[in-house]
């Protein structure tokens, strides 16, 4: 088996989960698939150097995030943050929650959104997220707190009794992207 075939086997196995992560970052399945393809191409370039299997998945996740953030930086001027939900709900059982969560994610600046996805979806520690983003752990914590506060506030309004203790939006700390803000 050549390294190309070996890589293809990894890519085949890893792409569904990577595409889910990409979807949470960009909120659109087409863009998510493009992001995954670009990410995996970069992983192939460094394939030999990351052949330790346990490290490949983490390397791919980091590459995905960097690709997403670089993409956002280059397109920033052409894109306006939206409050609209990126897709219509397709799930019968939890349509409201899905819409609300996607809606909140869409309003987050790219780095805050990345923090939420890495911290709670990819299960990275605060220090690991800080290493990926090249910022301080304190910065990660404040971005995460801000994003969660927003989620809690909106969900508290949309879903009766979901989180009755949740603070109202005006009480939430402002979510700021320190690199661009």
């Amino acid at each position, binding site marked *: *088996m*050549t*390294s*190309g075939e*070996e*890589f*293809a*086997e990894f*890519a*085949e196995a890893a*792409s*569904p989960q990577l*595409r*889910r992560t990409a*979807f*949470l970052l960009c909120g659109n*399945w087409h863009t998510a*698939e493009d992001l*995954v*393809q670009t990410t*995996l*191409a*970069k*992983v*192939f*370039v*460094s*394939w*030999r*150097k990351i*052949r*330790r*299997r*346990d*490290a490949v998945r*983490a*390397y791919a996740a*980091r590459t995905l995030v960097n690709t997403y953030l670089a993409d956002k930086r280059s397109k920033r001027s052409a894109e306006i943050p939206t409050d609209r939900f990126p897709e219509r*709900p*397709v*799930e019968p059982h*939890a349509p409201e*929650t*899905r819409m609300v*969560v*996607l809606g909140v*994610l869409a309003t987050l600046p790219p780095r805050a959104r990345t923090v*939420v996805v890495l911290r*709670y*979806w990819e*299960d990275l*520690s605060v*220090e*690991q997220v*800080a*290493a990926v983003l090249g910022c301080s752990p304190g910065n990660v914590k404040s971005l995460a707190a801000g994003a*969660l506060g927003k*989620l809690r506030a909106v*969900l508290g309004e949309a879903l009766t009794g979901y989180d009755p203790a*949740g603070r109202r939006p005006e009480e939430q700390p402002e979510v700021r992207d320190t690199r661009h803000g």
Partner: protein
Amino acid sequence: MDETSVRALLETAIGDEPPIGPVARSSLRAGIRLRRRARIRRAAGGAAVVIVFAVVIPAAIGTLANTPASRHHATRPPGPWVPPNGTAYVMNSGGGTVTPIDLATSTAGKPIIVSGEPVAMTIAPDRKTAYVASSATNSGPEPTSAQAVQPIDLTTNTAGKPIDLQSPADAIVVSPDGKTAYIINGFPSRTLTRVDLATNTPGKPITLSGAPETITMAADGTAYVTIQTATAYDFMPIDLATGKLGKPLKLSGQPGAIAISPDGSTAYAASQSSSTVITVTPINLTASTAGKPINLGGKPEPTNYYGEPLAIAITPDGKTAYLANGASSTVTPINLATNTPGKPINLGGKPGADAIAISPDGTTAYVANQPSSTVTPIDLAAGTPEKPIKIGHGWDSGFEAIVIAP
């Protein structure tokens, strides 16, 4: 709102997934194009983005540690450090080269070009031949592709004809009688290949019952492999005739390097137990039991998360192990009588202490650092670094192994 409920919310947000396209195949094609472009940039002398992710091959290091102790003395005469005689060979994986260093004069010679991307290197017991095992294509100025074992004649510093393995290699050891090389082909081939070194012909690969990552050999020829399981890493003996694996011993964390004591009684497995803690676990090879891990504490370096390389070498008298930490530029001595770590030796330069070897006379350790393009000698009696030896180019991959010939 706790972490579990946030995760549940994100899962809800994903909802129904549309079918996925041929992502694996298209990304492979795109990746090949990217590689080609990067090579053209390098060849044209343009600035290329350099990503270093070196993996130290414990097999190469392990072999070094197995030199018979009787030939060496660990202490040197009093007075200033004098470099030992002999030649060190540094393997540059991405560049597809092996660079000789004359130790007495501390100067690097002309790189020996090898086929493909060398991933592991070991030295025959007579120390006249080194063997590199390769995988895929290197990214040197004139890239070549090979999945082979290639002998290097250390008396003339010339590479011999590659012995084709038809699958990428991960680790290599040579039997104490120098007659056979054993190559581990890890994921996904999961095989052990024997190569008859008298005729340089490979045998039929033996499929193993797990995906091996490394192979380490004791001085008496007993070999051990590590296997990655779903939840951990197992360390176990391997029958080199049949490929049958012995009783597994679960290791804590992710083993980055393994060395066996010169008397063959103990293996030392260096692991990252978490993203911030490095430990060395002594393994009693007779009883097949793991001792209490030696905590190297280490400064929490969040960058360790992506599996920085570790390398470990043991002095010929078996008294001290030296652990090189690829995430930094430090080497930590460990007293093997008491299993206690000493003060880390800071080598300076960029982080990337990726490979380590100890001279047969036991006086000096040599640490290869690709990001700095250097090999730094350490005077072991004083525990101090000497002037780094500059190694020409670095290209885009690590110095993954270093061996020393007399």
